[in-house]
């Protein structure tokens, strides 16, 4: 966060004042900075002049990236696009080169509410009021299935008529075929059509903006080649919630120093010659951060779930798992051999039904004897749904039925709560009420790895039983340092306000973006304080259309379709970050608005807020 310079901050503040001048709630910043040379092309006092000149330049740039094609329907004409551009000259990813990856500081935090429950209503009511969810309109559901079947039928015909351009196995005649026929059919004829929307290579920091390495396919997605060009995009796809992904600033500096002093790895597991003071400090810092007795850290978030659940659970244990839980949890449960029952996503009544059934009727495989232990497994923020777990109610249920609670905070740690301590902080519940706190360092901390935290007894048990602790390599020193520096920043232990501001900025961005989206009339899922924002597009083909079209507008987003989501619920996912500014969000929202009109994404039947949304 080295470039926390006042200049760029001032520029953006000034520009809020220009665009939102009507409501007059934003301060004017210090006028002295305006017009200083460091403002570059963004001087808004003279916005009118560069606008005229920049326009042809921009439209040139838009189509200069041959890798991406804009998908347009007949209804829309090119003029509309030009008009839309005219409305938002303040920000453009291609136009700007300053402050890559750094958060812009908020000045007026009086205005900002940290994200936490208000506690005026009962938890259930508040939660359901703040969670947006809409049923699929019937005709859309029919169309989605129709579209999907059409894709499949075309795929089958294609497969019959042409030899697929895929590698075949050599020298293995007479072997049992290696792959399931449907699986390869699906990836060849359905997924391939929009394959270019995933695995896009980038060549920059995944900060508030990123640089795509352009690639084209001459053969409808069978293969790609690089064009050698690059496209600068606004990044709404990376899990950089607090904006700690940066190549400069204290995090990067301290990581580099650590790498120079301690090398890049230990080439040994924690139980052999891989333990060191830094990791011990990281563990005690994590425990302090979370407000629990002890913590243990691992080198990979996925493995934290997959390799530790088997140590905690065994046969004759009952696990009650949310249906939308992450693959790592499901793998961990499979390895553990415990009985797993699934409850409907975030549905407390269903959870209670399953719990009651499990506790009262015991293990049917074991003659109805009671289970050794019952564990509820949920995530803090569900990455595909954008919803927040109903933690207070789950804790009440867990206490009532004497179950244990495992909370996976992969997405919520750092991103939720007024101190960034995850959903326990958000709901103001005692973290000690959660038996096992799990989280990753990949997302909010901009590093890699994961932790488990809880009582000393639990952690000691894990130190002697965890697969990852005993067999896998210990965390690389610069990676651990990134976690420590960013965690201390969030906690304010670096002596600055940066962490708090980042948390505020994220909360503010999240509310603003979600409310604006709702106002546009698109359907979003999830809680209004969740920085993961899925926008439903339903049709499989629309996923590709939206991702590609947004790329032509220099916005990078993530699409998700079957099998990651139900067939009917194709979606686009936006991940907000504290590094985003209002200009950037406005820029994105305008593009989304236009595309939503164009592609018919405004499915929502809810009443729309006619008033302008205040940032």
């Amino acid at each position, binding site marked *: 966060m080295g470039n926390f310079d006042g200049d760029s901050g001032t520029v953006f503040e000034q520009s809020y004042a220009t665009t939102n001048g009507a409501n007059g709630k934003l301060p004017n910043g210090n006028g002295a900075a305006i017009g200083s040379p460091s403002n570059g092309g963004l001087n808004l006092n003279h916005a009118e002049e560069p606008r005229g000149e920049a326009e042809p330049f921009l439209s040139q740039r838009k189509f200069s990236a041959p890798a991406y094609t804009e998908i347009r329907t007949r209804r829309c004409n090119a003029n509309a696009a030009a008009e839309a551009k005219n409305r938002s000259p303040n920000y453009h990813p291609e136009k700007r080169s300053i402050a890559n990856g750094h958060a812009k500081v908020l000045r007026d935090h009086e205005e900002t509410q940290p994200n936490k429950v208000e506690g005026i209503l009962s938890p259930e009511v508040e939660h359901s009021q703040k969670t947006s969810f809409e049923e699929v309109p019937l005709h859309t559901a029919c169309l989605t299935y129709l579209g999907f079947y059409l894709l499949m039928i075309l795929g089958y015909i294609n497969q019959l008529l042409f030899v697929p351009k895929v*590698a075949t196995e050599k020298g293995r005649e007479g072997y*049992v075929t290696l792959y399931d026929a449907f699986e390869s059919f699906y990836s060849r004829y359905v997924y391939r059509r929009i394959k270019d929307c995933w695995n*896009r290579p980038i060549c920059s920091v995944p900060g508030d903006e990123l640089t795509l*390495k352009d690639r084209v396919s001459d053969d409808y997605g069978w293969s790609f080649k690089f064009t050698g060009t690059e496209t600068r995009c606004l990044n709404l796809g990376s899990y950089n919630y607090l904006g700690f992904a940066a190549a400069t600033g204290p995090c990067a500096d301290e990581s580099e120093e650590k790498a120079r002093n301690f090398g890049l790895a230990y*080439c040994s597991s924690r139980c052999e010659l891989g333990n060191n003071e830094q990791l011990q400090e990281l563990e005690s810092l994590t425990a302090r951060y979370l407000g629990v007795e002890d913590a243990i850290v691992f080198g990979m978030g996925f493995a934290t779930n997959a390799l530790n659940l088997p140590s905690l659970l065994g046969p004759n244990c009952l696990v009650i798992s949310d249906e939308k839980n992450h693959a790592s949890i499901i793998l961990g449960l499979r390895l553990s051999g415990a009985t797993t029952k699934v409850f409907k996503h975030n549905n407390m009544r269903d959870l209670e039904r399953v719990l009651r059934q499990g506790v009262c009727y015991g293990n049917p495989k074991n003659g109805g004897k009671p289970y050794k232990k019952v564990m509820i497994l949920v995530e803090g923020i569900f990455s595909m749904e954008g919803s927040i777990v109903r933690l207070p109610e789950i804790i009440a249920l867990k206490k009532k039925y004497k179950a244990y609670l495992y909370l996976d905070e992969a997405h919520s740690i750092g991103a939720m709560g007024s101190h960034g301590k995850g959903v326990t902080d958000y709901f103001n519940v005692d973290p000690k009420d959660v038996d096992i706190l799990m989280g990753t360092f*990949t997302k909010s901390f901009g590093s890699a790895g994961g932790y488990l935290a809880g009582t000393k007894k639990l952690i000691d048990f894990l130190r002697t039983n965890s697969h990852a602790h005993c067999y896998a390599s210990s965390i690389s020193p610069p990676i651990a340092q990134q976690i420590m520096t960013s965690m201390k920043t969030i906690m304010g232990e670096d002596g600055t306000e940066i962490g708090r501001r980042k948390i505020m900025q994220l909360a503010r961005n999240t509310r603003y973006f979600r409310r604006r989206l709702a106002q546009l009339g698109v359907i979003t899922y999830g809680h209004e304080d969740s920085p993961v924002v899925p926008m439903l597009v339903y049709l499989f083909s629309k996923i590709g259309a939206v991702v590609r079209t947004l790329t032509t507008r220099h916005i990078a987003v993530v699409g998700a379709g079957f099998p990651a989501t139900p067939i009917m619920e194709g979606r686009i996912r936006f991940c907000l970050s504290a590094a985003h500014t209002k200009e950037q969000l406005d820029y994105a929202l305008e593009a989304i608005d236009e595309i939503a009109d164009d592609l018919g994404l405004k499915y929502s039947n809810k009443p729309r807020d006619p008033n302008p949304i205040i940032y």
Partner: protein
Amino acid sequence: MVAIQLFNEIGSIFRNTPTYALVLETLLLIAVIWLLLHRRGAGNSRRRRLTKEEEDQIIADYTPEPLVADTDPNHPLLRTRIVQSKVGKRITVDGNDCLNLGSHNYLGFLEDQDILEESCKTLRKYGVGSCGPRGFYGTMDVHLDLEDRIAKFMGLEEAIVYSYGFSTVASAIPAYAKRGDIVFVDEAVNFAIQKGLDASRSTIAFFKHNDVEDLERLLIEQEKRDQKNPKKALKTRRFLVAEGIYMNTGEICPLPELVSLRQKYKLRLFIDESISFGTLGKGGRGVTEHFNVDRDEIDLISAGMEGSMATIGGFCVGSHFIAEHQRLSGLGYIFSASLPPMLTQAAISALDRFEQEPQIFQQLQDKAKTLHQKFSRFSKLTIRGNELSPVKHLYLATPAENYDKELQLLTELADKCIAQGVAVVQAAYLKDREHQPVRPSIRIAVNRLLEQTDINAAFDTIESVSSALL
């Protein structure tokens, strides 16, 4: 009138039907009714609906086991040694400056200044973390570069990089082997492979360590089963999984024999080269180069980059047909954040060194041989492992009464050696979670930078400590 006719008709049917048929049909009817009733009855008796009060009572009485059992404060895994310096040929452990015979830094790349410089440069371009899985903007050009370079280095079509060594092979196996398949595995395979096998839910057949005859015996048994049930055999995929150099024994797998069995019995052969990659063979290409076996004979090679390459992560390499599949089915690949770019760069730089200075592999193998010969002379310890292998195990020459006692003796031995300036460490295992008991040992890792004098000094220290202790 009609009714009488119908009655007569039915009567004639009864008269014309043989008695045994009538009896049979009646019995059948009774059986059906009985089964229907019984099923419902059984359900009732076993799953009698409880009243709400009864349920509440059960809930009030329910006492679950504690979340975790108490841990013995003297558990050997709780006491770990603290490394206080950069890891290299020398290492500071618990305040003692030691010669390092414990870190798996075979080629000494952890001390390499060029690799470090290039990694730091990458850090300054991309930041530390990648902030996303490969699918969602977590793919950086360095990842593609590394995959390309590995594939080229190995002379194969495609490589796929994972962000954690343990998860590499543990994700690769279940991407192919599914329920109903059969996997033949060496019984000494490392824990990551064991977890991969668990996740695959396939039938697992363990053969004796490096015993090709035992493997063939199992294969013949399977062949007989297949002949009995040819329909099932058409759907059963058969895999053979082995390690290049075994982490748990230090032995090299008999690759040519495995390959000929693979051809004979139509198996798919997966080799985990976590240790052998970058150590065996003239150019460090692993066990295939060591035995001069065509790499197309192996279906998939996986390796961690946490040994000779001295970074974090792992990769799988094979034909396009095989490796590509993991991009949609390797759980640890899809659902995990990608490898931090600076560590990816470290792997690329390590490959540069592999290609520029192929003599380092010969140097390492010479050191391994020298150390092996020297370390075979311990009076109270026996050595296990191939002489070319950089990983060797030292066991007690006279077994102690049980596992715990052996482990305790070895821990004491390691402690005393560390106090006297030689860092060796007992191999860490989760005793109860390994599929078969592993005998406690001191795991020695050979570093290319060791000198003859270092080896001699280490020998003298370990010899004097072990003679005094055992």
